[in-house]
């Protein structure tokens, strides 16, 4: 029993790491624009699918295929911001929600037509031999996921706290008008935030694809769970969301293992609803009063 629980927790941690990456992508865009980008999950899907396409159809080596997939997904993120988000500066939250939903349907639809409806796998980054850890088995890909996620979070932290663009983006998230008054190009920061979060989303999609397979419609669920992670973390683009993602991953994995695997996805959304009802500001943040 103890072994089993350890096993569930380990696999939960690796799915949780994926949710964290996606959640941070949500948070970065939210903090710089106030938009919840419902198309975030589609970037995740594009990462996995494009890697598969470059591998299978063009015979690229794995690292090249992954690199190209990240670059192309980032380009999609930038184009999406340019065409759909930037022209609407004074839109209400409602129309922004609707636009990003429309964008995600569009991206998903194009992916379906281009790549078909089949589910694909991409090969694991190294061997498929399971390792044993205190009685639980771990696939090398799980370690890849945890390692890459840690790296990205570290780079992310460095970017936001030690580079001029990162600091400028943090300034925008506190107060856009004040930021523009001290000479920060707010529009450029919004563009950069879309670029970063689409790149992070695509990486999340790539590193999870060898374990969970990929198809044109994986983005919906992964995106929503990433959003859960960000909500638990109080929409922080840092450690709060990482913790939220890991918590969600572990709870979901334990629930699926010990209660019922059919309700695995429902568990995530019940957690989401509970958090929204009880602590909408996230687990780690003080409540803010709304300005009128």
């Amino acid at each position, binding site marked *: 029993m103890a072994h089993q629980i350890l096993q569930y927790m380990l696999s939960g941690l690796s799915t949780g790491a994926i949710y964290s990456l996606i959640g941070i992508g949500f948070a970065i865009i939210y903090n710089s624009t106030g938009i919840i980008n419902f198309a975030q999950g589609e970037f995740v899907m594009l990462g996995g699918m494009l890697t598969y396409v470059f591998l299978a159809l063009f015979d690229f080596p794995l690292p090249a295929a992954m690199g190209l997939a990240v670059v192309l997904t980032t380009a999609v993120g930038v184009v999406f911001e340019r065409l759909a988000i930037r022209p609407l500066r004074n839109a209400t939250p*409602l129309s922004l929600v609707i636009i990003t939903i*429309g964008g995600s349907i569009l991206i998903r639809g194009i992916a379906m037509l281009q790549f078909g409806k089949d589910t694909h796998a991409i090969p694991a980054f190294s061997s498929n031999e399971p390792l044993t850890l205190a009685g639980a088995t771990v696939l090398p890909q799980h370690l890849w996921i945890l390692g890459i996620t840690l790296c990205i979070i570290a780079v992310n932290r460095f970017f936001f706290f030690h580079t001029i663009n990162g600091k400028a983006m943090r300034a925008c998230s506190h107060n856009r008008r004040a930021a523009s008054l001290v000479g920060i190009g707010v529009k450029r920061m919004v563009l950069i935030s879309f670029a970063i979060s689409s790149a992070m989303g695509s990486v999340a999609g790539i590193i999870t694809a060898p374990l969970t397979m990929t198809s044109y419609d994986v983005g919906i669920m992964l995106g929503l769970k990433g959003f859960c992670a960000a909500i638990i973390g109080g929409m922080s683009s840092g450690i709060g969301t990482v913790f939220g993602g890991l918590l969600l991953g572990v709870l979901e994995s334990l629930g699926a293992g010990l209660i019922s695997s059919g309700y695995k*996805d429902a568990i995530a*959304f019940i957690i989401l*609803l509970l958090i*929204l009802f009880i602590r*909408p500001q996230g687990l780690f943040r003080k409540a803010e009063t709304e300005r009128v």
Partner: protein
Amino acid sequence: MLKGNKNLVTYGMLSGIVMLAPLFFAGGYLLNVLVFVGINTLLAVALNLLLGFAGQISLGHAAFFGLGAYISGVSTATYGVNPWAAMLLAAVAVGLVAFAIGFPILKLKGHYLAMATLGFGIIVYIVFNETVDLTGGPSGLSGIPSFTVADFSFDSDMKNYYLIWGITLVAIVLSANLVNSRIGRALRSIHSSEVAARVMGVNVRLLKVQIFTLSAVLSSIAGSLYAHTMTFISPTSFGFNFSVELLTMVVIGGLGSILGPLLGAGLLTLLPEFLRTFQDYDIIVYGLLLVLMTMYLPGGLASGFTAMCARIRSRFSREVVKNAQG
């Protein structure tokens, strides 16, 4: 007074068109499609009350539609309840559910509200799939009886057409009345500013939950109508995609317009039928329509239609003036 008369004429014409339409397509495939236009219009009217007037988004309305359909379906097909009683039962049950979850859910705003309703929708969808003993799971529930009155059975498209459109037209007129009443004005004040509405003495919290409940009950009735017309239901009809489709209908038709839901539901239900050759492209068309309409025609088809009429009228009057001068 004049406005009232004008509305009366509009509704009279609308009812006339709706009632006469089947004569042209009697028994054909198109009649079957028009039955669905009726159900979707009812759903769009319901969502429009919430989204268009009170300004509260819901990405989980397919869940209420599905709950109505499944409560109706299970209670009639498995337990032999009379379809009309089942429809009432479903409406009451869904109303209670909506009222109960309305208080915590509608405390949320904007994106958070969208995500919470979406989460609710997905949970309900998963329950439809997983409770196989009750709902039949992914393979669906069949053998749902049609509506009957004494010996008369609503077993053909033609009969169901009149039943469904009758209810839908009543819902349109009732929603128009509601919106032009004191409650409707209070709803629109919530849409503009909740704080201002509260200052004016509107019980914002309760009113939002009430309109959410009304919207859910109408969706549940649409679900019952769907179940007894189709006689077969499966979870795929009530998933996230359908919630988005409903949202598209309301947005495209025109948020906060009375006839908007009819235009939106009509367009989105008929379009795929005419675009048969495009097949899979319909999802892309939805996405594009959503983005482009929100960007360039935020008032939807209804406002576009009004603006077009105004433009034609002004051009016409200008020409009249020109002719008079010439």
